[in-house]
């Protein structure tokens, strides 16, 4: 690799030729502040916060996109640089709704942090550019008054997700990042994945706040409120309370939920196991009976909506299985209500999800049984953390408790649903046992694990050659489906997760302030989940005793008429 020698703030450093000044400075433990910069995604040099002085060059230059060249001498914090950064921040602040105290991103806001560091005190301007009013009509709430026009959300929406529902519009002082005609997101092809929320440096993008609805239910004596927690929540919730990413806080989480007043605390990992029973059966049916292939998973509601908007021709490939969240709701209001002797109408199902699209999914018209919605309220990991903080519970010091029985036992297979590749691996574990009629020991399908956007593998089970693919991020899904359309590729079974990395990196997960650490945090959460799987005694869905009990007592077999009534659904072209 060709190396370049440069000087930064008087210190010599040797960096690869392709490095930017920003990267070179990091090598010297100098962190140049940035705002619009997002490595590999939004390298546009537009906010100008990262400007530096370069000896002999006119003006100041953005460190994030300026490549090094031999002999460069850079000053990263001269008085000119500091004054300019302060001036630029004042300009941004002047058009930013400064409602910090009531902002969900208070103390978790990149702009606030920058202003503190750069010593911005008062904003010397008055007029406000009209960038539109807050739009609460969708699952993702947009507040243009807080938008700093960094463009990160638009980049994620179009480049990572291939959705492209928000973009820059207008120009000059009227510039905004908006939907076409400023419409509600729900009027367009937004998949509610929430990746825009995660990448927003400020509070301009938020999920719809459903904590009020949950508080009301919990305090309503007439209702029997049950809660389910998705696999990925427990490895990230701790971050909201100062714990390491990937720490498994399942026990504390259950204790906290009980203290918050939920009548029963159950586990979505249980219904993930249930999903495998149904989806594994569906896969075997399609394989054996010449059904439509590839079978594509349906757990990720962002992916489902994406498919419904953009890939109509693949709708019949989608598994008819409801997602674990919806399966849980359906059995909570039937099997559980029946067993517990509670009127199903009184059962109120709350989900804690790493996902914003789950809010949309719960509202889907067809996801109800006998007129009862499967799920009544969905809150994100962030919203749960907020509720815990509101109630003064000292989360980090809580003792552990276990899930309630009937729908609280789960296997390692259910746990790994939270990672990209997890549903695939869980399904393979069960399908392999079923096909071989053995209890196989070799159950870690490492070929479908990893963080790459598209992974393919050939899995040989009992002489059958299964061609599978695992995709995360809907832009990657597009790539794969386009290849299938053109005949370039063919598979038996595909797992798609809308969010890069899977649910651990869902749109409802804790905000990662330091975006340069985002990949590492994702990795640690993934590792946390595989740790849970490794530590479980039971690691195959069909071994889950509560699942077996439920089928025996209530639904006969996977794929039975009753199971179809409760656990399967259909999709629409949008």
């Amino acid at each position: 690799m060709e190396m370049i020698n440069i000087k930064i703030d008087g210190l010599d450093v040797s960096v690869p030729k392709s490095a930017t000044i920003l990267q070179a400075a990091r090598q010297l433990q100098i962190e140049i502040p940035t705002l619009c910069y997002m490595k590999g995604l939004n390298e546009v040099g537009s906010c100008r916060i990262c400007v530096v002085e370069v000896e002999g060059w006119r003006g100041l230059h953005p460190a994030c996109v300026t490549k090094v060249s031999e002999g460069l001498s850079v000053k990263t914090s001269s008085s000119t640089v500091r004054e300019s950064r302060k001036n630029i921040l004042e300009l941004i602040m002047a058009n930013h709704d400064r409602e910090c105290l009531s902002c969900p991103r208070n103390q978790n806001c990149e702009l606030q942090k920058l202003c503190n560091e750069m010593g911005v005190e008062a904003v010397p301007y008055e007029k406000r550019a009209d960038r539109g009013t807050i739009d609460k009509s969708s699952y993702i709430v947009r507040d243009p008054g807080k938008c700093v026009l960094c463009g990160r959300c638009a980049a994620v929406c179009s480049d990572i997700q291939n959705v492209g529902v928000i973009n820059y519009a207008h120009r000059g002082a009227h510039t905004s990042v908006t939907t076409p005609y400023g419409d509600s997101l729900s009027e367009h092809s937004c998949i509610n994945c929430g990746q825009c929320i995660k990448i927003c440096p400020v509070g301009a993008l938020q999920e719809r706040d459903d904590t009020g609805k949950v508080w009301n239910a919990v305090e309503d004596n007439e209702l029997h409120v049950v809660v389910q927690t998705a696999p990925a929540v427990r490895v990230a919730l701790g971050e909201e309370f100062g714990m390491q990413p990937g720490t498994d806080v399942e026990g504390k989480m259950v204790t906290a939920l009980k203290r918050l007043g939920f009548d029963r605390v159950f586990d979505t990992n249980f219904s993930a196991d249930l999903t495998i029973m149904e989806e594994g059966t569906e896969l075997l049916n399609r394989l054996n009976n010449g059904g439509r292939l590839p079978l594509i998973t349906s757990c990720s509601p962002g992916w489902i909506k994406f498919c419904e908007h953009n890939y109509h021709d693949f709708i019949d490939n989608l598994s008819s299985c409801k997602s674990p969240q919806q399966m849980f709701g359906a059995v909570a209001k039937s099997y559980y209500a029946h067993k517990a002797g509670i009127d199903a109408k009184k059962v109120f199902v709350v989900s804690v999800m790493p996902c914003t699209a789950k809010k949309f999914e719960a509202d889907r018209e067809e996801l109800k049984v006998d007129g009862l919605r499967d799920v009544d309220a969905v809150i994100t990991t962030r919203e749960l953390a907020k509720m815990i903080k509101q109630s003064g519970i000292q989360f980090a010091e809580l003792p552990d408790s276990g899930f309630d029985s009937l729908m609280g036992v789960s296997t390692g297979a259910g746990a790994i649903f939270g990672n990209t590749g997890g549903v695939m691996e869980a399904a393979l574990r069960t399908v392999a046992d079923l096909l071989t009629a053995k209890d196989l020991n070799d159950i870690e399908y490492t070929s479908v694990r990893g963080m790459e956007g598209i992974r393919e593998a050939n899995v040989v089970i009992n002489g059958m050659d299964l061609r599978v693919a695992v995709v995360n991020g809907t832009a990657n899904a597009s790539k794969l489906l386009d290849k299938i359309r053109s005949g370039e590729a063919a598979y038996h079974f595909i797992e798609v997760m809308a969010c890069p990395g899977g649910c651990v990196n869902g749109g409802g997960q804790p905000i990662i302030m330091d975006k340069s650490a985002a990949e590492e945090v994702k990795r640690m959460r993934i590792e946390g989940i595989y740790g849970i799987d490794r530590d479980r005694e039971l690691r195959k869905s069909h071994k889950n005793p509560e699942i077996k009990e439920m089928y025996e007592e209530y639904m006969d077999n996977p794929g039975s008429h009753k199971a179809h009534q409760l656990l399967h659904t259909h999709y629409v072209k949008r």
Partner: protein
Amino acid sequence: MEKVREVLSRYGNQKESLIQIMLELQQLSGNNYLPAEWVAAVSEALQMPLSKVYGVITFYAMFNTSPKGKFIVEVCKSGPCHVSGAENVLCMLEEELGIKAGETTCDGIFTLQLSSCFGACDIAPAIKVGESVYGNLTREKLKDIIVSYREGLKYAKC
């Protein structure tokens, strides 16, 4: 919609022709704007996200997303016209048309708006009506210009 398809196919549904396509379509609208359903049709034909197309048409000053008058009367507000009395021209036009800048006359014939320099500085203060530029303006001249457009329209209808 027929018109839209004709224009699109003439440009071979090429993404890079978006601006040229939109300019033609706006001409065809009769009200100097791009109806939302046309914009959606273009976005689909060019296989571009609607948000991107919307971004383009709101970026350029010549595109409108809501109906305007048959004739857009533009008053240059840039430096050369300003020092040559553009403000008076604006006042006179506001009086003559009975509307403020940014508004459209009740009969839908004229929209009055301010514009950046359109290169008629040698005859400043200048206005532009549709494609035509008029300069060295006085109250009398302005009256005549407005009348000529009203008359022209009358004859066109006969």
